């Protein structure tokens, strides 16, 4: 049974099931949905996911639309190496940190990312075209988010709070990785894949706070994930400069 994955760049939510499937050794048919062209709100895609969010995974007659639960499904439904620890405490820790990345880190990091990347990338288009694009978005929460990004409606206070939270996350992640080799503990797991997708650009966006001197554990963690064949395979599917950024994780030749 073919697995179809509808996704944008290997980044954030789209990248989570891409990397999990690759680590599991599951081939999938890739359907690239261009977020910046609002492909995810077009009628063809809304037939697959009426919420108009990406990614979506179609497996037989099953349609999955939540990215982190989709990663658990990738491990649960297919043969291949286990991507979740067998130890119950490590499994719980993996899930706790995935929720922390998803609900605390990602909204703040993405607010900064959307204000400096997504917003400017779409803002050159006529206002009427952008308004029409917003009107096609099914979910109210996504309409609010897109309006803020398109028309740069983020306040200074909101962006400052987002930066404060991102810096807090950088600190607490380093503390965590000082105690544990991987997010769940001793086992590489979905927690690492989730964190990598949401946070691999931290050293680029916050170079004064996330770097080899201040957060050596985090840098090593990112590099070890980047060096895995699955990550190489998935990031090669990227089409924009955003995905190319991941190459900063190459180790220097003399290292």
């Amino acid at each position, binding site marked *: 049974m073919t697995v179809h994955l509808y996704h944008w760049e290997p980044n954030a939510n789209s990248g989570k099931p891409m990397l999990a499937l690759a680590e599991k050794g599951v081939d999938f048919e890739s359907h690239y949905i261009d977020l910046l062209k609002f492909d995810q709100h077009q009628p063809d895609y809304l037939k697959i996911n009426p919420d108009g969010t990406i990614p979506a995974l179609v497996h037989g007659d099953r349609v*999955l639309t*939540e990215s982190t639960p989709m990663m658990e*499904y990738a491990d649960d*439904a297919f043969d291949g190496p286990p991507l979740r620890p067998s130890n119950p*405490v490590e499994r719980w820790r993996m*899930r*706790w940190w995935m929720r922390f990345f998803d609900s605390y880190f990602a909204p703040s990091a993405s*607010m900064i990312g959307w204000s400096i990347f997504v917003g400017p990338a779409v803002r050159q288009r006529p206002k009427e075209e952008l308004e029409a694009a917003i009107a096609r978005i099914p979910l109210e929460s996504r309409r609010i988010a897109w309006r803020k990004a398109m028309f740069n409606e983020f306040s200074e206070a909101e962006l400052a709070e987002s930066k404060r939270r991102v810096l807090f996350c950088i600190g607490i992640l380093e503390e965590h990785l000082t105690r544990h080799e991987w997010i769940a503990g001793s086992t590489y797991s979905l927690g690492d894949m989730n964190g990598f997708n949401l946070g691999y650009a931290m050293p680029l966006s916050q170079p004064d706070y996330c770097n080899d001197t201040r957060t050596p554990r985090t840098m090593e963690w990112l590099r070890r994930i980047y060096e895995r064949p699955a990550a190489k395979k998935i990031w090669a599917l990227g089409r924009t400069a955003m995905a190319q950024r991941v190459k900063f994780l190459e180790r220097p030749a003399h290292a």
Partner: protein
Amino acid sequence: MLELYHSEPNTFFLKPLIALHEKQARFESRWFDADQLEQFTAELPDTIEARLHLEREGPLLVHDGTVISNAFFMLEYIAEGLPGESLLPDTAYDRYRMHASGQFLGAHLGSLVPILGCVKYTVPRLAAMDRARLDACLEQVAPVERRQNWLALLDGTYTPQILDTARERLKFPVTRVESQLANGPWLAGPRYSIADIDAFAMLRVLPDLTPSLVNSQATPRICDFIARIEARPAVRAALATSRSGTPERHFVPGVEPSRWG
């Protein structure tokens, strides 16, 4: 040894109490009075994950010294790790639905229900407390988001307009659950699972908090769902741990609403 740190059996605290009773697990109840903010004065377990409290307030499960936090992941820990009746769906897709339900309702019900419950029941209790003592207690609360959640109950953040918006936004998860229940009696496949426990603990209070949204005419399937779960012996036993006799009137602040607006 299993120890559960909890307050009155409602919302977040009710979830693991039900699951432990469903499993007929032996556990030590470590009760604290959240109305008196005892979670900030009692010596509760402290780890990175417990301190951050993604739900802001909630139960802590300690299993042989290891601290498990977050009510939904606690449900998964109990379901996967303890012997007894299975509380997990049977297929990979239904387990996906369980995870997706926990995530979706955790964000939507987990943020909105506590606001309405706290404004109706917690704020009057706080108003009756000595303000200087309250301020001194809250001043110590970390992280800052957890402190702000409490201060928001005191500083007039929740205006009638904000509460109207919260009720309006509840329509989305409530409508989604009502339509899911049209496909079968439970939320994640043909059998009762922790997805149902998770949803029940939040939905149960809505006929009181938003009677125009959740009632037997507007949401008959949700009302039937609540009644079926309330009839389970384990659920009755969990609710019977209440010290007040009215657990449905005891709330703590919940998950932070989306910062995107």
